[in-house]
């Protein structure tokens, strides 16, 4: 569903931030994207989300060449992708419920049609009593869960998560990870960017995409 071929990216006239990226993300696969801070994990996630154009190479996503996509086609593709940002990117003037419902709202679905779905997901991630709270009053962990819920609400075919457990305690991190695993089992391909080795060790079957010095090495996971 996602394939990078000889992809490289430079900002301006500087050196390439990432180079010679060759890898694919198969449907229903589960992988960690890891590497030291500043190695290019977030850049790679942004390339996958089509919010950056590579300066060379080709990205194929859902069977289409990303370079040939117009804005409408990019929008259609993003509706098949869930994304969790490291800094959450919740809209501060909307309630937690409205933030989580946002992807459905922008698709034009009626509020009455998705309310039960959103409420159920919010209760599942432990935000049942924070649905009408605004993000500025949520704790880091609560914001994290709201951001994850927003990514999951459309039941995406591909989930991209940037340090999704970076702001929560270990037990909550495990619970959130279970959420991703369940989503993966239901057919979603998952890419989680993290540098938490302990977390990755809990999922030995997951592929590891290790980025370092601008290049990528792929380590297949153990058989489950």
């Amino acid at each position: 569903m996602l394939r990078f071929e000889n992809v490289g990216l430079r900002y301006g006239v500087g050196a390439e931030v990432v180079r010679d990226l060759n890898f694919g993300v198969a449907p229903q696969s589960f992988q960690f994207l890891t590497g030291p801070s500043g190695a290019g994990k977030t850049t790679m996630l942004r390339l996958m989300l089509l919010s950056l154009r590579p300066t060379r190479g080709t990205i194929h996503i859902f069977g289409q060449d990303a370079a040939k996509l117009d804005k409408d086609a990019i929008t259609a593709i993003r509706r098949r992708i869930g994304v969790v940002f490291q800094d959450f990117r919740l809209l501060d003037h909307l309630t937690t419920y409205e933030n989580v419902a946002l992807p459905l709202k922008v698709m034009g679905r009626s509020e009455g049609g998705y309310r039960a779905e959103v409420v159920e997901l919010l209760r599942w991630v432990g935000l049942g009593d924070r649905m009408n709270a605004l993000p500025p009053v949520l704790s880091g962990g609560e914001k994290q869960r709201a951001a994850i819920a927003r990514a999951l609400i459309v039941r995406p075919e591909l989930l991209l998560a940037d340090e999704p457990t970076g702001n929560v305690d270990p037990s909550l991190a495990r619970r959130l990870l279970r959420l991703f695993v369940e989503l993966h089992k239901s057919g979603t391909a998952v890419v989680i960017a993290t540098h938490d080795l302990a977390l990755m060790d809990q999922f030995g079957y997951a592929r590891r995409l290790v980025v370092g010095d601008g290049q990528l090495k792929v380590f297949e996971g153990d058989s489950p």
Partner: protein
Amino acid sequence: MNASSPPTLPPASQLKRDMPLIPSDSIAGRALVVVIAIMTFLACLTAGGAILVADASQGWRAGVSRDVTIQIKPRPGGDADALVAAAADIAARAPGIAEVHAYSKAESENLLAPWLGDGLDLGQLPVPRLIVVHMQSGHREDLEPLRQALAAGAPGASLDDHRLWLSRLDTMADAIVVFAAALFALMILAMATAIGFATRGAMAGTREIIDVLHFVGAADSYIARQFQGHFLRLGFKGAAIGGLSAALFFGLASLVSLWRSRSAGGEQIAALFGAFALGLGGYAAIAAICLAIAGLTALLSREIVFRQLRSLL
């Protein structure tokens, strides 16, 4: 996600604040409303002024073009009253004449009062005598027989058909209307520029929100609609304030001109602008300008947002 079903579903009112996706306070709304209000006020004033001049010039043209004036200059030892009577009689018998009004000596002297004052004795001055001849419509060009009859029967009488004045009035009225149209266009341009700045500023201030909307799958048209709705409201507000102020201005000006109409200066203004009163058409034009400005604000912001969004991934 397979958790046990929630016992009850909270009502929507508990879950939503129904805030616009682009927060109102992220846009310099108040400043833009003030700019739009001022520009609308000036645009309505310009348009209203042009309408007044155009209407008044129609009145001048209709009035002046149907009137001709016979002027009789007093001669030493001549009987001015007899000459006036003879000229009026000739005029009344000429073809195509609807009405003849000969100004008496006192009426002629009164015509000079606004310029010379009331206290002056004009009895010793050779004040020219006037006869205003009102033509039937369609006989404007047929003055030669009257001119010849006057030369024969009332020596010293001259016929003025106001052709020179008509031409000057036409030129002046047309120039005023063209100038007003140019001024109006400049104001719209200035307002469009202000809207452009405000829209770009609003987009810069909400870049993070726009990014999030993009990432969760919002189409450019959806995001542009969020801005368009907001700017339409701002446009309506500013245009309504400016338009109502302009309507109030014309209403007050009409009352003041009515009050001052008895004075000499008031008569001059009335001669130039009529009663300084906008008709129903003028107020309708103000309403139309307000609606157009509100619509222009929304369309412009939408177009600018679209252009900016196209440059974003």
